[in-house]
């Protein structure tokens, strides 16, 4: 029974760690997976999926794939697993409070320069520049089109 008690405590701790004072409630949005595979995944891999950036399990937004951080090399369907995980995490970044459009979701605001309407981002480069310096950059436009076509993830409360 000792292990069962330990497991219960661990699960409780995990639940506590993931909970915030203003807990978020709502549903994850939906966005075209085929478009994600064809257009979004390559952009996320190129611009976000580095081992010291979003190629780690400690970050809410994660990008996995060949030539980047890998999930588990022993799995036979590793490519599918990595794309599915990246897709789920990208969907979760389409979160807004429901009253705002997907263009104000973290997937689009976090990598965008502040002066272009973006948000603060730890991934600024050596010169303090964000991933996309303007909305005109191709990578941002690809993400933006996909986000606009999604239902987004809307809910209430919570902190990102």
């Amino acid at each position, binding site marked *: 029974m*000792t*292990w069962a008690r*330990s*497991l219960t405590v*661990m699960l409780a701790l*995990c639940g506590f760690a993931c909970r915030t004072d203003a807990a978020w409630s709502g549903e994850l949005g939906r966005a075209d997976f085929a478009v994600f595979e064809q257009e979004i995944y*390559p952009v996320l*891999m*190129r611009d976000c999926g*580095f*081992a*010291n*950036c979003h*190629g*780690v*399990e400690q970050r809410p937004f994660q990008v*996995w*794939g*060949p*030539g*980047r*951080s*890998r*999930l*588990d*090399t022993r799995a036979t369907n590793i490519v599918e697993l990595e794309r599915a995980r990246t897709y789920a995490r990208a969907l979760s970044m389409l979160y807004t409070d429901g009253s705002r459009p997907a263009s104000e979701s973290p997937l689009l605001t976090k990598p965008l320069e502040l002066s272009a309407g973006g948000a603060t981002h730890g991934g600024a*480069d*050596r*010169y303090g*520049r964000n991933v996309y310096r303007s909305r005109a950059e191709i990578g941002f436009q690809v993400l933006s089109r996909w986000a606009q076509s999604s239902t987004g993830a809307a809910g209430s409360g919570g902190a990102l």
Partner: protein
Amino acid sequence: MISGRLWQLGVCVGALATTSTVYAYRNPERFGAPVQEGGGGGKFFTLSRAEGYGCAACHSQGAPIAVDIRGLPAIVVPGEQYRITLDWPDDRPSVALNVEMTTNDGAPFGQLIAPDPLTLSAADLCRVSDEPSSGQSVSIDAAGRRVLLIAECGQAQTSFDWISPLGLTEGYFSTSITFSNRNGKLDGDQVVDVSEPFGRQSAVKPPSSCAITGRAPTRFGALAWCLSVLALVARAATRHLTI
């Protein structure tokens, strides 16, 4: 009791350990390969103003390592060819880097060239190659971005050529160098970042009188020239007032 504790330990390790592994780019050509094929998709991690990110985006930064940079001109003569050498401690056999020269806004600055290995010293050459090779190649993309890729091949230093442009005399030399510990992982490596302006002294215009000698003026010479002119002007003004 022991098996129970082992089980607890297993659960904890399973919950906390990361399952991820990462593969580095041992072949420099992968930087330019499509991301769908595991390539960099055109990111070269030179730390230049064209990109802004270096090797530490993936590799651990680690402790600093002294790298000697020789041949970077303080005064850039348009159209001139320079040989630049990066020299690191000889006990580091596993070193890879990408080099880029840009203007302040990230545009290409001159031309980087991988020289004929026969013109290089033994320290520049790969230790793992039968034929003389420096492990260098140049990547040029559709936008004209020119990056010198230098593969890990056991060289003790690396030397390459750069031809300055005709219209500009001031730019930035950028490189991010990975010193691998060869454990096949990203942790434990060391990264040295360099992003250095050069050619700025050329903005100082020499006095016209110095052009006769064909030599660049020293600061003392320029100061003396200015003081002489001021003295002559003051003398003339004094004479004028006297008259």
